[in-house]
């Protein structure tokens, strides 16, 4: 593409590409670390803008890593761009006029949807493979108007951008684990794209665009990255990120061991009302169970620490369960079991529980090692796929 060559030297802000490394610490790839020092907040804000804007955060969260979301935005804005530019000649011949024409509508669009428009406006440049003519037009347009866009953007929607970036920045630590596959995909695809399309450099436009393309083109890379759970954990703890995450109880699962899927399914189907279960469902439940355990275990460990105990007793578990309505469904279980222990502990008052814990220490160590073998995910071998 001629436009690329002509444009490449003029694009010093390749840094904008780097800005998409929202989870540098988490990503195992070396390339990710290169992007680390660059602006990371704007990226987060882009990736996560839907979260903060949405009334229902969960569903929005879901869409972020998914490519369709970005693509959906990409298409519509593609056409506005080309329609605004009647042809490359016009733009080149009368830059000022072209700018005057192009500029106002764009500027007007920024305040309303600061992120999506700024992002998707340039994602249109992603279309080149299928629409080379449009790409050239857009690139020329960009050359002329780049500065205008920047200024327009910052004039029109600085408050939005910064406010949202701040909002989402607060969630960065929490969300990292879930964003980083797409980010990994982004950077993976990014390397090649940096060379292919150096001309497209709009700092704010990059992340969504890359996320879209990356998710589509490098889903595999994302998966590979996300499956490198151990590495990410190591890096996280090394950077001290883990501490922050653990307080939010959404830490990127220190748990590498997975529950046997078949067992989960069987427990589910023990309820006679439960009929068929999709293949993915036990995996989802297993993940939820893992998070549930992390929350429960972490909290009871906190209780143990508060009591200067090295051992989490059933009593502490009970305390945790009763401390939060979220776990009210466990109260029967906890209450039933605790009743026995209380008989022993009641006469000797609270401290007695520590003795009980101490006696239990011996039993502990044995079980830990055995579980290793059971760790791997089980995928029902001969089972038919039942996903609807």
């Amino acid at each position: 593409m001629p436009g690329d060559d002509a444009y490449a030297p003029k694009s010093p802000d390749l840094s904008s590409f780097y800005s998409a490394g929202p989870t540098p610490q988490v990503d195992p790839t070396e390339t990710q670390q290169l992007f680390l020092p660059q602006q990371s907040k704007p990226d987060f804000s882009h990736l996560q803008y839907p979260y903060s804007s949405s009334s229902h955060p969960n569903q929005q969260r879901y869409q972020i890593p998914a490519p369709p979301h970005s693509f959906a935005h990409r298409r519509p804005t593609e056409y506005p761009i080309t329609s605004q530019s009647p042809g490359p000649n016009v733009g080149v011949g009368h830059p000022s006029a072209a700018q005057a024409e192009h500029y106002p509508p764009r500027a007007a669009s920024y305040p309303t949807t600061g992120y999506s428009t700024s992002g998707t406006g340039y994602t249109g440049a992603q279309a080149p493979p299928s629409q080379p003519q449009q790409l050239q037009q857009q690139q020329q347009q960009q050359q002329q108007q780049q500065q205008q866009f920047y200024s327009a953007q910052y004039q029109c929607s600085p408050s939005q951008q910064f406010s949202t970036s701040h909002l989402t920045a607060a969630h960065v630590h929490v969300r990292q684990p879930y964003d980083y596959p797409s980010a990994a995909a982004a950077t993976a695809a990014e390397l090649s794209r940096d060379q292919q399309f150096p001309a497209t450099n709009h700092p704010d436009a990059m992340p969504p665009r890359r996320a879209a393309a990356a998710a589509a083109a490098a889903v595999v890379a994302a998966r590979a990255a996300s499956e490198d759970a151990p590495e990410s954990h190591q890096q996280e703890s090394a950077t001290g990120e883990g501490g922050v995450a653990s307080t939010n109880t959404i830490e990127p699962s220190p748990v590498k061991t997975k529950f046997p899927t078949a067992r989960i399914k069987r427990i589910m189907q023990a309820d006679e009302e439960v009929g068929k279960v999709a293949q993915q469902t036990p995996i989802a439940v297993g993940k939820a169970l893992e998070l549930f355990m992390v929350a429960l275990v972490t909290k009871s460990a906190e209780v143990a620490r508060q009591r200067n105990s090295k051992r989490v007793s059933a009593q502490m578990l009970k305390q945790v369960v009763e401390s939060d309505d979220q776990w009210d469904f466990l109260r029967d279980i906890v209450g039933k079991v605790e009743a026995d222990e209380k008989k022993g502990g009641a006469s000797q008052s609270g401290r007695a529980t520590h003795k009980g814990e101490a006696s239990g220490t011996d039993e502990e160590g044995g079980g830990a090692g055995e579980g290793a073998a059971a760790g791997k995910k089980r995928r029902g071998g001969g089972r038919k796929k039942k996903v609807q």
Partner: protein
Amino acid sequence: MSDHEFGGSDDLSLPKATVQKIVSEILSGSSGIAFSKEARDILIECCVEFITLISSEANEISEKEAKKTIACDHIIKALDQLGFPDYVPAVLEAAAEHKEVQKGREKKANKLEQSGMTLEELERLQQEQFAAAAARHN
């Protein structure tokens, strides 16, 4: 379905060793705190209860939607409704991951089928190609 993998179907608990391992993985960061055996047993019960809760809620949701199969979506909704919306993103990610892996597997499996030849035909073709290569070499 998968019951044949296990001898009896009345063992509706989670494997203790696995639970213990996960617990120690969770606690690995927090300075030597461990779970007592009683606490672990209760934890297992809690886990089973959790699964039951989620699945029965998901079952209701799926019935409302007139679906016969409990899908991932239903689990997500159940988590949301039961006060565990925090878990949703991670669960979604895990499910998506699994889906991708599954897709990859299917593709691989289909490669053989897509060749449009039976195994015998493929084998014959291979032999022919071997022979041709050998002839060329000599």
